[in-house]
């Protein structure tokens, strides 16, 4: 089997934890993972925008995934502050940071392994989820970042 065939057959996902739940996004969309830097809050923006960071001279907005996904803000005791990371993604030609509790692993998945979601917990809208996958009794929710981040932007600020 050539290398090319392998790539087309499987997609790599990076998985991370937000509020005790495991999520995944396509690895190809991610640029790097960094430790949290000082975030400068930006006034008059939606509350899920944590602010902006300076990534080697570039100003990049950081999205608080917990707020974006409307997950309970309650802190996960299992993951410590040191584990918190910012995943830098490159989407539609823009760099954005996703603030997550903890980054887990890279998983290789066949597209056929991803199951459609029949119902979701009401907190997350179904359209933002590409599917779910079961690996070793563990459920990973695959997010559709394009839909999640660019769905009709709510009115900003007050």
């Amino acid at each position, binding site marked *: 089997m050539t290398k090319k065939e392998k790539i087309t057959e499987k997609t790599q996902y990076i998985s991370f934890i937000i509020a005790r739940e495991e999520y995944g996004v396509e690895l190809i969309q991610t640029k790097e993972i960094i430790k949290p830097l000082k975030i*400068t809050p930006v*006034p*008059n923006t939606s509350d899920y925008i944590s602010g*902006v960071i*300076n990534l080697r001279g570039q*100003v990049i*907005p950081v999205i608080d995934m917990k707020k974006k996904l409307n997950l309970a803000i309650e802190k996960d005791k299992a993951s410590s502050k040191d584990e918190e990371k910012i995943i830098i993604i490159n989407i539609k030609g823009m760099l954005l940071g996703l603030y997550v509790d903890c980054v887990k692993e890279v998983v290789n998945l066949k597209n056929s392994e991803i199951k459609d979601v029949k119902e979701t917990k009401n907190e997350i809208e179904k359209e933002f989820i590409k599917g779910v996958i079961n690996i070793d009794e563990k459920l990973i929710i695959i997010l559709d970042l394009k839909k999640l981040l660019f769905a009709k932007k709510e009115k*900003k600020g007050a």
Partner: protein
Amino acid sequence: MSSQDKLGLIFKTDIMNEVKTNIEKLDGEIYIESKKGQGSKFTIVLPLTLAITEALMVKINKEIFAIPLNAISEILKIETKNIKQVKGNDVILLRDETISLIDGKKSLNMNVEYNLYKTKKEISVVIINNGGNPIGLIVDELLYQQEIVIKSLSDYLENVKNISGATIIGDGEVALILDVKDIA
């Protein structure tokens, strides 16, 4: 004389030459379109990421903000007992001119109580004059003046009210640039 020659002639004059050199210094471009009897159109293209400006750095609610210097007409320390009221708005009298005061915390929608400045004895006010009526922006602290490189605030956060861009300050943090046109 071809139009190219005519352009050359314009650039030979000292002023245009100065303009062109400075634009090129910022990695920008200038285009001139001319129609006989109709005038000329000058198009200047500047990359936002490389625009440099002189700015006053101030502190509002513990965060550092930059105010472009060209919009500032003066900086004052005002004793709060000199604040007067006109139609419920706080104003100050400056050389017989009434200037309304705006609390920086309020225009930045910060999650703190506004208009607390009256409890202080003295406040720092930046007088912003951007063509229209001058206004007095109340800040917590005046820091220093420095040249800043204007960076855009990412397309994802388009048109943020009262913020026109961002810059990176000495310690590597991001400081936001106030949009004086919005505030004033």
